């Protein structure tokens, strides 16, 4: 089986034991995301203060690619300024579709989906939720923003 491109060890590790999984207390923004082609659902929660992502968690379930992607993403953006997270979103968004370089580090492993066009959505589900959470595009419904905290 030649799947080293798609299922690298780092992906499997994250998928088996995802980081930052669970409910986030005092979240300032909660975004449900869904992949209608497979029914996978994921909810991303951020606590943003002074333009900085203080904490991030996610709930839901999905395939190995989807879970690993969410896990890596939360690790990468925790404690980062929102603007930096937004830039990272753009880089991953373009990178997994072969329209740019993937970011360096463990996230680069997600680039394997380039070979598997049907899996791009799996890799991007958490990132699309992040885009919405950061207000980088108009809400298409389902966004709940709570301003306290």
């Amino acid at each position, binding site marked *: *089986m*030649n*799947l080293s491109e*798609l*299922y690298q060890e780092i992906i*499997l590790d994250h998928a*088996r034991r995802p980081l930052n999984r669970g409910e986030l207390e005092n979240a300032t923004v909660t975004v449900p995301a869904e992949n209608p*082609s*497979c*029914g*996978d*659902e994921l909810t991303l929660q951020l606590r943003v203060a002074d333009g900085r992502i203080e904490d991030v968690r996610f709930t839901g*379930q*999905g*395939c*190995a*690619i*989807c879970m690993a992607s969410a896990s890596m993403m939360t690790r990468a953006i925790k404690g980062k300024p929102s603007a930096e997270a937004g830039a990272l979103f753009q880089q991953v968004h373009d990178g997994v579709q072969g329209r740019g370089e993937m970011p360096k580090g463990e996230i680069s492993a997600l680039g394997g989906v380039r070979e*598997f066009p049907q*899996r791009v959505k*799996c890799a991007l589900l958490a990132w699309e939720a992040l885009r919405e959470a950061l207000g980088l595009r108009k809400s298409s419904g389902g966004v709940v923003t709570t301003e306290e905290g």
Partner: protein
Amino acid sequence: MQAFRPLGAELRSDFPVLDQQVRGKPLIYLDNAATTQKPRRVIDALSRFYERDNSNVHRGLHELSNRATAQYEEARERVARYIGAPSAETIIFTRGTTEGINLVANSWGARNIGPGDGILLTEMEHHSNIVPWQLLAERTGARIDWVPVIGDEGLPDAAALKEKLERRPKIFAFVHVSNSLGVVNPAAEWCAMARAHGVATLVDGAQSAGHMPVDVREIGCDFFVFSGHKTCGPTGIGALYGRAEMLEAMPPWQGGGEMISRVGFDRTAFKAPPHRFEAGTPDIAGAIGLGVALDYVHDLGRDRIFEHDAGLASDAAERLTGIPGMRLLGPKRGRAGLVSFALEGVHAHDVVSLANEEGIALRGGHHCTQPLMRKLGLASTARASFYIYNTPAEVERLVEAVAKIQKFFQR
């Protein structure tokens, strides 16, 4: 040892698409519940029509139009014969199962469904036999009731069905063979029960028409719908059978050419069925291809096809059970030709991607049965669905691949 007689593997050569490698391995096509492959003679019938006879139907007086019309109407007769319909006039060409159900929901529904009326469905329906009724219920104020399915076997709750029919819904629409469970519903028995309570019936034959004997008069349904492309035919063509008295009382659902007898500026008179329900230029080549496909399937023997498909699926189910973490859906006895499963700790998408590396085409997802999946507590399953050209050797390759995938994720 197989307890069934598989069809001869020589018929594989009738299907050009099967002769190819995927990821360096021979293609094993196990996504037949989504669409079946096409035999050479169907592909040839399409090109032959476009190369020699292409013309519009029913309105030309010239030679080509006469030929096209004759072949198109002959295809209608073939469909009627194939499902045991009493006459070609009871067969309406559609784009497929989905359009057939929408036609009934819109046309029959407009005349027969009002506020508070009941529409009875089962929990194992495909979205195509849910959403058209939901749209109708929204428009009319009707309510939808559901026959529950029980456990992972997914068998319908017979006591609940009886009780719900006694409440006299206007129509009972149900799937003949479930695409995500492989349950075969007792269509004739259910239609008799419904009739006894004055309830109209629609049978969704998408997964049965190509796989088992179907006789609409034996079933005793008011409507039967199926798709050509799941029956060796082209995509974009299917058929609706309606009992003659039902069709005659139904209004048109789409307006246009071909379905009128006289059009004036103020009013229009419509043709009799089936043409009343076929507005515009139909998929002429598709209908002709469907006729050829149905003859091909019929000649193989639908009893034999069911034995073959169901035999492969039962074999697969039995062997897959041995894999750690395996959760099989569908009935233990009387399973149709498909196996749906969930592997603990491995998402269906990952199963399908890894199987693809072995040249095996599976389906992974909710199979357009989201309410059922939610009830089973699953987001998705992987599904292997079998057809006439699949072989016992392919079942072995499937089971080996799934075992390998399970190990891959447990390491």
